[in-house]
């Protein structure tokens, strides 16, 4: 039996690179696919909108764990043996694309219609309207939730441990099995997640507090507007 010491902690910390790799894979892949989902959701064709909406409902409606099993076992139907990293990466990408797509769709929809119309009146082609008029405004709206969802992705990578991918949760299990010190091992894992997620959560909250549309909505904002207006007029 091994003691729970520095080597074990280092083993878990070393596995952090795989958690981060998986997070990056899911965030980049999910971001690209999510952008497609968001754009298709505001497409003019009703059939496309419905199909994409169905995709979002199905992916958001099944547990990530089940999605991960499907991605892990499905390729073997075609005789392909898929690495756990890629299976987990694909599952997380699909999952992230549905959630990020929904976030970004609502950001696109939050842009007033007049912006689209006036850009069209300037004879900008559709792609340039999106690129130069809509996207810069939508990004500011979507940023806080996107960072918030990144925290979600970091936590969701823990599920890859169930299909046997060695990231920090799996590393924690291995250490716990070798040392019979589950409390220390899993608390160590939890601390690592916390160290990554907490700053990101705070960053997301900070972004949200200073985002443009926010000041009007809060009660504090309302009150200050009311109390100031009599003096200025």
């Amino acid at each position, binding site marked *: 039996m091994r003691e729970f010491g520095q080597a074990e902690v280092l083993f878990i910390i070393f596995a952090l690179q795989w958690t981060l790799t998986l997070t990056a894979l899911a965030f980049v892949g999910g971001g690209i696919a999510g952008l497609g989902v968001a754009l298709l959701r505001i497409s003019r064709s009703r059939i496309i909108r419905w199909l994409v909406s169905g995709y979002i409902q199905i992916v958001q409606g099944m547990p990530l764990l*089940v999605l991960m099993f*499907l991605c892990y076992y*499905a390729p073997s139907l075609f005789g392909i043996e898929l690495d756990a990293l890629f299976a987990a990466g694909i599952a997380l990408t699909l999952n992230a694309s549905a959630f990020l797509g929904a976030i970004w769709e609502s950001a696109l929809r939050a842009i007033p219609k007049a912006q689209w119309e006036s850009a069209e009146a300037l004879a900008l082609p559709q792609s340039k309207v999106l690129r130069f008029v809509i996207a810069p405004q939508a990004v500011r709206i979507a940023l806080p939730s996107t960072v918030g969802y990144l925290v979600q992705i970091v936590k969701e990578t823990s599920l890859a441990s169930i299909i046997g991918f060695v990231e920090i949760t799996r590393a924690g299990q291995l250490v716990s099995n070798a040392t019979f010190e589950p409390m220390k091992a899993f608390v160590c894992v939890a601390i690592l997640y916390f160290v990554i997620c907490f700053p990101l959560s705070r960053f997301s909250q900070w972004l949200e507090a200073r985002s443009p549309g926010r000041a009007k909505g809060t009660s504090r904002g*309302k009150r200050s507007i009311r109390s100031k207006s009599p003096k200025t007029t």
Partner: protein
Amino acid sequence: MGYNFQFGVLVNYLPEFVGGLGLTLLLSLVGIFGGLALGIACAIVSVRGPLIPRVMVRVYVEIMRNTPMLVQIFVIFFGLPSLGIRLSPFVSVLLAIVLNNGGYIAEIVRAGIQSIHPSQVEAAESLGLTGGQTMRFVILPPALERVMTPIISQSVLLMLATSLVSAIGVEDLTGVAMIASSETFRTMEIYVVIAFIYVGLNFVFRALLNAVGLLMFKRSRQRLLGRA
């Protein structure tokens, strides 16, 4: 693709699947309503309570929101016995689910309470309502009504997250699927079926919770039906 889908073998597992579905429903409902109760209590403490409980609630909420539920389950099930607390798998996951959901709900409800205009509280004070009465009758009803949508989304996500309990061998819907697939090797069929059951549950939960919201809040009902 040289693979024949054979759903026939699944029929033999029908009783297990029904049992697993029941357990998933039980875990979800206890998690949703237990978490709601815990979350509302924590939210009240975090806006009203004295400094030390407030800090404790803050720490609890941040820990729950910034660590994965799977790790929370592992700490409770594998970790607590070394402190002399030995819980059955079922009790551990129940505890983990309620604690996890409580953390999320606390943050949602806190936002709702803080969105209530201070003049409401002042009005209640001038009517001579006590602090407790103000919270119960003036602040909480509109606050909860305002955050009903995020609460429903969180509840549905929690229902999906109950699938994680299968990681420590609790036989919920996913747990039963894991057993069935290792016994029959009909992995794809089983997980496809399970996936659609969850998608269905997703709609059922959304509809039911929306109905609960409409029953609880007169104003949402009026908004839906028009001014009656």
